[in-house]
Every structure is written in C-alpha cells, then in structure tokens.
C-alpha cells in the first residue's frame, strides 16, 4: 500500500522548488476502473494525486511528448525539469531513454513508487462489468480490494494482474530521486513460458496467428504514441519520401508496421505493456516484444533499462557477439 499523503507531500515539495515545470502523476478517472495522468503545475495541485492499482499508465512518455514551440526573438527556452511519478517498470523506460541520451538525467525529477502490481483494465472490467461511477481499488498483500457501492470484494492478484506484473523482476524503481515508502524486493522471474510455447509452433501456424491479429489493426498508432521509447522526432511511418510503409490499411502494410515497431524496440523495450494496453483492437503486442526481449537476453546477455551508465545494445559491439543469424 502506498501512502498517498507521502506521495502528495513529495510532489508538493518538488513543485515548490521552482526549478520544475510540472510533476506528472495520477488522479482519479471519470468512470469505472479509470485513473488518468494528472499534472501538478502548482503545489496545491498535488492534492489531486493518487496511487492505486488502477495507475496503469507509464508516465515516462510525458517528458518525451514535451512540445517545443518556436521561440520569439529574445525568448529563452523553458529549461526547467519535469517531475515524473514512476513504478518499477516505468522507471526502466527513463533509464533506457537516459542511456540513449534521449533525456538528460538532470532534467527529470523521478518520484519512485515501489509497485506490488497493477490491474489489467480489461480483466477487471470483465469481472465487474458496467461500472459507471469511479471504483476504488486497493492493494492488500496478494489481493486486490475492490469496493463497489460500499460492498468490498477481495480478488487474488493473479486473477486481475496483466502478465507483465506476474513476471516482474523490478518492482522497485531502478532510478529515483525520491522513493515513496519502502523498497519491494523482486521475487518473480521472467521465464518466457508463453514465448517458448509459441516458438514450438510451425511457421504456418505462427503466420496464421499473426495474420489474423494484424488484419485487425487500424493503424491509429496508439501503440506508438503511448510508448515512452517511441520518441523519434519523425516516425518512419509518417515519412513520405521515401515512403517506407504505405498508408493503405491492409494485412501486408499492417504487418510491415507492426513488425517494424517491434524491431525498432529490440533491446530497447522495457516491457511496460502500454502498447498492448492501449490497442483499441486488442492486438497482443507484448508477445512480439517478449520474443525480442528473450532473443536479446539469450544472444547478448542484455536487458534494457536497468543501467543508465551502460551503452545501448545497438550502440555496442563485442568481438564474441553471436552472428549466426547473419546470412
């Protein structure tokens, strides 16, 4: 259980310092099992902040979404820091971006929250359908406590958690300036069970499976925009000359988009699962990400987002790097 008062105090203190543009955290959502990103520009805004198992978003995306409007003559750019509230997985995104020099360590104030698992919005909505009013969900050991109209139900975490939480090895933020509450030790292990099962399928079965998934894609690019690691100034799918991926939405172009997205995140994806969470068509994108994560780990003994000092995987070379995949 995270002490919300402690979080609000930390946010208030951070904003008060004056060298911070805003702190992004969470506030209550507008219906059902929603929480939403919240921005504290003034110390009193911190009062809105919450933390609960409904805080499923990776807020590390917001420093990357910062807009830099053209400056008027003599105008100085706003070089203040940005404060971000992060869970374990979210912090790995910040570590990875710092490693890639996408973000300066001194330009972010990281407020870390040791995380004991969030809910999968789809699973909790299926279990408690039709919730109009915002529902209170709390963390209680190995259970989530769901209170609807005064009636409390305890549900085993395994039933409602997304897969990424079930195999989370880094519940406590890796990098932080302020930690809210006590560190949570990582006791789980990512064993890539589902990837291993999928790898055993025939090429034909694999293709049939993914063809059906990619057919559904409507190319809204929510997967890209919600991803903190997708921060290219111009995404290759938006480029027209040359046009790498056509604008036509069909299984061929959709496959190109989804595979390019996955490959561009090889050795960079930190597994926060935002792409899959936000996909309006329900594509199991984490299955692609996990396969690449497993390959990168096995081939190069590299895990993304755990050491800000290390070089990015694709920026380093070791003489004994395996190369049997080179044709």
């Amino acid at each position, binding site marked *: 259980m995270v002490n919300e008062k402690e979080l609000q105090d930390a946010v208030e203190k951070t904003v008060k310092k004056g060298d911070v543009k805003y702190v992004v955290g969470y506030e209550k*959502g507008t219906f059902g099992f929603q929480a*939403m990103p919240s921005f504290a520009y003034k110390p009193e805004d911190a009062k809105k902040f919450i933390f609960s198992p409904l805080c499923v978003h990776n807020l590390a995306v917001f420093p990357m979404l910062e807009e830099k409007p053209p400056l008027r003559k003599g105008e100085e750019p706003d070089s203040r820091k940005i404060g971000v509230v992060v869970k374990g997985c979210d912090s790995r995104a910040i570590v990875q971006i710092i490693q890639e020099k996408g973000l300066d360590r001194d330009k972010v104030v990281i407020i870390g929250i040791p995380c004991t698992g969030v809910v999968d919005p789809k699973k909790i909505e299926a279990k408690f359908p039709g919730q109009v009013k915002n529902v209170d969900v709390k963390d209680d050991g190995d259970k989530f406590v769901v209170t609807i109209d005064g009636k409390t139900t305890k549900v085993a975490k395994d039933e409602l958690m997304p897969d990424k939480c079930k195999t989370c090895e880094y519940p406590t933020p890796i990098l932080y300036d302020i930690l809210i509450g006590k560190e949570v030790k990582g006791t789980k292990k990512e064993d890539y069970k589902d990837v291993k099962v999928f790898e055993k399928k025939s090429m034909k079965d694999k293709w049939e499976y993914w063809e059906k*998934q990619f057919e559904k894609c409507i190319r809204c*690019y929510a997967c890209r925009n919600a991803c903190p690691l997708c921060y290219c100034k111009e995404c290759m799918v938006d480029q027209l000359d040359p046009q790498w991926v056509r604008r036509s939405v069909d299984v061929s172009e959709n496959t190109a988009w989804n595979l390019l997205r996955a490959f561009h995140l090889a050795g960079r994806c930190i597994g926060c699962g*935002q792409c899959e969470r936000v996909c309006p*068509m329900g594509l199991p994108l984490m299955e692609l990400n996990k396969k690449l994560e497993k390959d990168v780990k096995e081939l190069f003994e590299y895990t993304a987002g755990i050491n800000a000092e290390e070089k990015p995987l694709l920026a380093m070379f070791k003489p004994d790097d395996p190369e049997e995949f080179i044709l």
Partner: protein
Amino acid sequence: MDKLIISKNDLPKLLDDLIKKYTVFAPTNNNDTVIFSQIKKANEANLNYLNSQYPPKALMLCQTETLFKFKPGPKGDIESVKLDEKKIIFGIRPCDAKSMAILDHAFSGDYKDPYFLTKRDNTLLIGLSCIKPGVNCFCTSFDDSPASSKYVDILLTEIGDKYYVEVMSDRGKQITKGASKFFKPAKESDAKSKKEAEKKAISAIKRTQKTDKIAEKLDKIFDNKFWKEVADRCVGCGTCTYLCPTCHCFDIQDESTLTKGARVRVWDTCMNPEYTLHASGYNPRPARANRVRNRVYHKYNYYPKNFNVIACVGCGRCIDLCPVNIDIIDVVTQAGEVKP
C-alpha cells in the same frame, strides 16, 4: 409505416433469405472483439452484442478505399471501381445509423462525393435497438433514444421471444413484403412491449453530457487555457477519431509499383501533427492542445453551425478506449462551464 413482428426462430431464416439477394454485413466475432463484416450464413452474426469495436461507417467510408486503378501507357490506362453493390447493414445500432445521416451532410455538400453517396444509396440499414446500453453510452444527451427508428430503413427491437419490427422507408417495405411469410402484423401489446424495452434502455443510460447552447459557448473560449489542461494528458494517437462514427477526414495517396497503381483514400486523423502541416513547414495546429480542441470544435461548434446538428451520437467508443481517459462527456460539459 408498417409495424410487424418476427419470431426469434424466423429471424435467421430471414437473414439467410437476404444473404441470397444482397451482400449482408452484420456484427461478427473476431477474436475478442465484434466488428461488422460480410456474412454468408445467418449464424455468423452475433446479435447479442453491445456495439462493434469500430463503427460501421467503415462500410461507407472504407478505411482504405480504392478510387481508381491505373497502369502506365501513353494515354494512361484508368480502371474505375464498382460501387453499386446492393448491401444491407444488419444489426446496426441506432447511434451508428444516426452517424450515417450526420456524414451525409459532409459528403453531399458543395462537392457530392460519388464514393460515399453511391454506397449509401445502395445500402439498406436494418437496425437493432440497444436494449442494454454500455457504461459510456449517452445518445440520450442529444434527444435520441437507444431504440430510435429515425435513421434506419427497418428497426428491430427484441421483445421476449420475438422482435418488434418498424418499417421506416419504402426500401424497408420492399424487404418485408418480399419476405412476408416471416412477418405478422404487430398487436397493440407488442407496441407497448417495445415502448417498455425502450424506456428500460433509456433509464439504463447513466451518463449525460450538457450540450445546451454549446456551439455559442465554445465560440467564446477558443483561446482559453482550458484546452491546454485537457490536452496535457493526450498522447496524440488516433484512437478517438478512428473509432468515431462521425469522424470522416481522409488522406489521398497514389500507391504504385512499376506496372500498376491505385489512387487510394485512407482515414486520416486531426490528432496527427502532419494533418495540418503545410508544405512550407508551417503548422497552424502545432500543439496537442490545438488538435484536441479541434476535435471538440468540429463536433460541437463547426458542425452545428454548418448543418444544424451536433456531430456526436453518444456511442462512447472514444471514452471507452482513450488510453488516458480523455472523456468527451466531461470535456464538453466542463467546457460549457468555463468562464470566457
């Protein structure tokens, strides 16, 4: 027009009959989602659904529409596409049917869009009343009803072991006449049952948007900081616009290889910065706040001013699936309360 009934047993038979004469689209299961797709047998349709994941506007304004095909040659070799296939959209919800009527304004204005209008003229809408609305349904905020028959050719409403059938157009009448063996005239008690089902559905809608004089109110707050506050959390994806049954912006591209090509139009979204980017590099909507505001203004200000109708039907898709809970019910209600 006619009020009839059809038993639940006869409905699949009617559907199979229609499939012989028309290309029939109906809600179907696709993994965990429901989408409108062509059916070849009645049992492929899933009529026990809340609403389709993306709207059936996609059948009129396809996400990817081939305008014509071409091959290289001294005079060019242009091949036009066939559009006048007789279609039925079966099981469309009243809100989505209304969206078609809203789209008519955009596509039959100064420039008559032959692609949209030909398809629209050749498509019959057989609606299915929404008797169990979802969490974010708010069609009643626009004085409409989940069992409204205004925008369809035929409306079916489930009442017990049968459907109450309202025939709303001559085209609809041709259908019921042609398959008269399946229909019986409705009794007064059936009409009453429909009213009750409708009342129950209306009372199940819990959320309301305040749209009173909204176009005028929005006129006064165009430059208000409210829009930046709303857009702060926007990640800039196109989910809200692609899932919207009334959003209709598109992009046109020539896609070709050395031997053949096609001019295609594809859905576009005003949430994408590139949408308004000029060739000069100037962008009149440079920030997410400009773009989020545009989505709201297009629906609640520009459209009402031009066509006298709010371009939102209250289907709730953009609310259900926004990654960051930008909730158009609250945004518009709050915008109405912002002091200019």
